[in-house]
């Protein structure tokens, strides 16, 4: 990391706070430790950007193993590889595929939709773009006509996001006959969006990341089938220009098979991404990478203000080595050490100091028990 910035924590030789429990959305470019996984993710994104063939990928992670951070990282990488990333957290309540669709449509503001439309028109001409959309989904064709006429009313976005409460009479004023209500409507709308992204010329494909997909394990069989059918139909309708990553978080990776229908499972890429617990060595590398990516001075000891021994002591306390558990503990210790080092009470974090602080925060274990069952 650059040394040009003013460090926020000069006494710790850190530019910024290194231990974050919640992943930060946006420009997630920091990857710590787990080199093999990093190369697998990078290779996948590179490959997705090299051809337009549609695909389905499965990602499994142990609880707190960094699944969401990995998807945010994929999101950042995707932009460099001509992929249009759409990250959707699986809704907590799902009754049909339309609930998932809303998350997808939220990524397409009127501005984005309009930009994609005009880009497509540059390549294919207005008439062809509108006609080809209208043939498959007349209401979406009407939407594009309104955009062409510069009549970009917010009603368009409400219709696109399948907002309940938008009446037919209202929609008729902009030439739309029906609201998006069924899973079929939602899939047809996704197909149009995928084609707009691909025909814009700026992107090879739309990369749809469905995070927390394990939440479908709370759904009755009928809704699970509807969701699976939605995914299958989307891929069938888009043999090109769509890649989907489904991410799951639960105890056993092979349980994924119980949540997907045979039809969807058969479409999945055989090389799935796994984020298991870390080994001790991998956890040390993870901590060192995190600290070095926030380091303000290159000459500093890589683990400062920790030592190899104090890191070991903290990792011993974590038990199950997942990024979340590790960062929680390092966060607690560093928060205290921050003041103590600045005040000259200690020079660095010793194992005894770390253990003492962790002993004073027994709630950590309790919370994790609740989180991980």
């Amino acid at each position: 990391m650059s040394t040009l910035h003013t460090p926020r924590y000069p006494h710790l030789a850190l530019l910024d706070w290194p231990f974050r429990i919640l992943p930060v959305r946006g420009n997630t470019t920091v990857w710590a430790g787990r080199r093999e996984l990093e190369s697998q993710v990078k290779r996948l994104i590179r490959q997705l950007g090299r051809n337009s063939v549609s695909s389905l990928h499965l990602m499994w992670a142990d609880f707190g193993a960094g699944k969401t951070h990995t998807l945010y990282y994929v999101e950042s990488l995707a932009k460099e590889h001509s992929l249009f990333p759409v990250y959707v957290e699986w809704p907590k309540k799902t009754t049909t595929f339309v609930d998932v669709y809303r998350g997808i449509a939220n990524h397409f503001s009127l501005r984005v939709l309009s930009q994609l439309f005009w880009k497509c028109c540059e390549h294919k001409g207005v008439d062809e773009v509108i006609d080809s959309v209208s043939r498959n989904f007349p209401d979406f064709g009407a939407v594009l006509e309104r955009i062409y006429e510069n009549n970009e009313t917010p009603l368009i976005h409400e219709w696109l996001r399948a907002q309940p409460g938008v009446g037919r009479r209202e929609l008729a004023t902009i030439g739309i006959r029906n609201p998006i209500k069924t899973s079929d409507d939602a899939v047809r709308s996704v197909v149009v969006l995928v084609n707009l992204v691909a025909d814009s010329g700026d992107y090879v494909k739309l990369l749809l990341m469905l995070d927390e997909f394990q939440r479908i394990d709370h759904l009755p069989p009928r809704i699970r089938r509807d969701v699976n059918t939605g995914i299958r139909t989307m891929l069938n309708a888009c043999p090109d220009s769509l890649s989907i990553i489904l991410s799951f978080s639960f105890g056993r990776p092979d349980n994924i098979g119980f949540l997907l229908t045979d039809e969807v499972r058969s479409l999945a890429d055989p090389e799935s991404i796994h984020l298991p617990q870390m080994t001790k060595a991998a956890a040390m590398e993870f901590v060192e990478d995190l600290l070095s990516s926030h380091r303000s001075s290159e000459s500093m000891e890589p683990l400062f203000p920790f030592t190899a021994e104090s890191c070991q002591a903290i990792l011993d306390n974590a038990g199950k080595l997942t990024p979340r558990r590790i960062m929680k503990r390092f966060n607690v210790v560093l928060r205290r050490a921050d003041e103590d080092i600045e005040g000259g009470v200690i020079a660095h974090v010793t194992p005894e100091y770390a253990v003492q602080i962790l002993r004073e925060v027994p709630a950590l274990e309790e919370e994790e028990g609740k989180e991980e069952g």
Partner: protein
Amino acid sequence: MNYQFEFSYSVTHAEHIVLSIARTDASLLPECIRSRHYDCIDCQVMNHDSCILARDEDFVSYLRYRVSEDFRLRDLIREVIKEHGRPMYRDIIASMVRARHPQVSEQMVYTLLSSYKADFKKFDGGVYGLAEWISQGAHSSGLSD
């Protein structure tokens, strides 16, 4: 203490009662079901003279087997849910159990999920998890999820 249970009717009825007790509170099972070594003299079932269990040792052996099988299946369901780490819909639990033991019926899994109330908790609709998750507070990936 007197048992409020009676084993004086049919064998089917007796089996039903024994399994119900096993699933509710195994410590209340008559001693003949809990152990191979028992003495009816100390037993305090309601009608000792008409007790089917006292008259048929083979039937008692069979009941002991049924109870132990019931416990074994309960433990298997527990294991499946614990490994998954979050509550899930009951048909998924049944599929996971049947993937390991195909002879177990889906209905049997459903019955045990709803009967062993000390082990399993119905979270929402047909969603079941471990009862201990409730005592630990809302499960992050379950109810609060």
